């Protein structure tokens, strides 16, 4: 029902008996009575000269006038009382209509708050989902990062070992070079020996040629000697071949050992030192990065935990919508009961036994019942009532 329907009723246009008006009427009646009394006394004194019959008639007329005045007053009062009852009924009816209209609005309020609360819950649900996804990611991230850090750490250790090896490489090369120099000296000595071998081979070959001439001159007796000469010639040839081979090998070695890297080794050493320094810096950066992410994850985890707790609090606070709804429903119940009392009284207002005090007693009883029902429910913010209430949580 809408509030506009109340516009059809205009209780204020009806005559209302005010207390002031009632007092004025009373004074007027009393004044009339006094006037009539005085008139009666005057009549009595003046009418004493009249014959008995006239005097009685005059007193009778005066009494009749008093009675008529009183009756008129009583009729007017009765009429006003009827008017008052009708007005009271109209007021009660308007009151009920107003309650009905306000009740409809309260129901809408409950619906609105419930819708708002549900929308809020849905939004919070999305937020919870996002927070949990993030939490899951953050929970897993340190493990993944630890794995990565372990791998990187191993790689860095390996690189450091290589770096250290590279760092010592020029020194080792220097040592190897010294060894090679020694070898070169040995080879140079060997080359000298090769020349001797070549000379010996040449001389042996010349000797073999001369010997073969001598063997030819000796004829049959030189045959055995000729065999020795042939072997000497073969030996000479093999020695010569060997000398050539040694010389070639010496050339190959000489050309191979140009020792350019000896000059380069200083640069290599500097490069290796820089590489080791870079690897060390990389190791430090890696450790810094690890610490940074560790801190970052701790901060984000703490923040996320706080967000999750806040979401829980929000969801808890949303329940007050239900608490408010229940309170309004209890108020509506009490108002409905009160309205029943009013309606009942309005219907009986003209009855001879109608008693306003009875309505008062019933209203008090109804109030006590309402307060009792309210006291059965947990108080929200009333600290003293909260202290008196049983604990909010109890396991049996």
């Amino acid at each position: 029902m809408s509030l506009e329907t109340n516009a059809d009723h205009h209780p204020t246009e009806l005559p209302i008996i005010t207390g002031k008006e009632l007092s004025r009427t009373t004074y007027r009646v009393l004044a009339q009575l006094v006037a009539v009394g005085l008139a009666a006394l005057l009549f009595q004194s003046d009418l004493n000269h009249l014959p008995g019959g006239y005097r009685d008639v005059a007193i009778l007329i005066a009494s009749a006038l008093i009675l008529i005045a009183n009756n008129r007053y009583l009729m007017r009062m009765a009429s006003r009382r009827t008017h008052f009852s009708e007005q009271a009924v109209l007021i009660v009816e308007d009151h009920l209509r107003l309650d009905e209209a306000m009740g409809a609005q309260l129901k809408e309020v409950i619906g609105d708050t419930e819708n708002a609360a549900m929308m809020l819950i849905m939004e919070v649900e999305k937020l919870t989902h996002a927070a949990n996804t993030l939490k899951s990611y953050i929970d897993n991230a340190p493990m993944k990062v630890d794995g990565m850090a372990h791998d990187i750490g191993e790689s860095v250790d390996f690189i450091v070992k290589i770096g250290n090896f590279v760092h010592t490489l020029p020194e080792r090369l220097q040592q190897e070079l010294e060894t090679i120099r020694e070898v070169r000296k040995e080879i140079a000595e060997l080359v000298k020996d090769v020349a001797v071998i070549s000379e010996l081979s040449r001389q042996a070959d010349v000797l073999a040629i001369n010997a073969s001439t001598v063997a030819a001159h000796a004829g049959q007796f030189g045959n055995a000697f000729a065999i020795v000469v042939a072997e000497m010639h073969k030996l000479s040839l093999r020695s010569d071949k060997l000398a050539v081979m040694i010389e070639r090998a010496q050339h190959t070695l000489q050309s191979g050992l140009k020792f350019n890297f000896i000059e380069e080794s200083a640069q290599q050493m500097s490069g290796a030192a820089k590489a080791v320094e870079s690897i060390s810096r990389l190791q430090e950066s890696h450790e810094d990065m690890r610490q940074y992410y560790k801190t970052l994850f701790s901060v984000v985890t703490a923040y996320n935990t706080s967000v999750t707790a806040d979401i829980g609090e929000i969801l808890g606070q949303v329940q007050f919508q239900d608490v408010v709804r229940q309170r309004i429903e209890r108020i509506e119940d009490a108002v409905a009961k009160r309205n029943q009392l009013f309606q009942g009284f309005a219907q009986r207002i003209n009855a001879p036994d109608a008693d306003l005090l009875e309505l008062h007693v019933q209203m008090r009883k109804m109030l006590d019942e309402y307060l009792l029902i309210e006291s059965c429910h947990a108080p929200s913010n009333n600290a003293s009532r909260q202290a008196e209430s049983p604990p909010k949580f109890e396991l049996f």
Partner: protein
Amino acid sequence: MAKNILIVDDSATVLMSFKAYLEAVGLIIETADDGVKALAKLKGGLKPDMVITDINMPNMNGIELIQNIRALPSFRFTPILVMTTESQQAKRDEAKKLGATGWVVKPTTPAVLLNIIKQVLPGA
């Protein structure tokens, strides 16, 4: 294994808020908005590890629901937690007598309820 909880309340707000929070922490939540529907779900094969019920509900209130649940042989020992705005001792005693496991006064935060659930259902 995730615990399954049946929440019975005539307030959509309460059902939604607790369902949102408790499912996010890994619990499986079933809901019913009055005692009749809750009982139908239990008789229909739902086997929750715990029931959480309001007291003041239409059709069948929480006290009647507890009584009916305890009459079902499969649910004689299933924990039943009462969650209501009512706080009076007489009602608590009545619920306890009928076999309720505990009493929680609304409003309460889902985190508090989760702690209570963990006390009643270790491992939840």
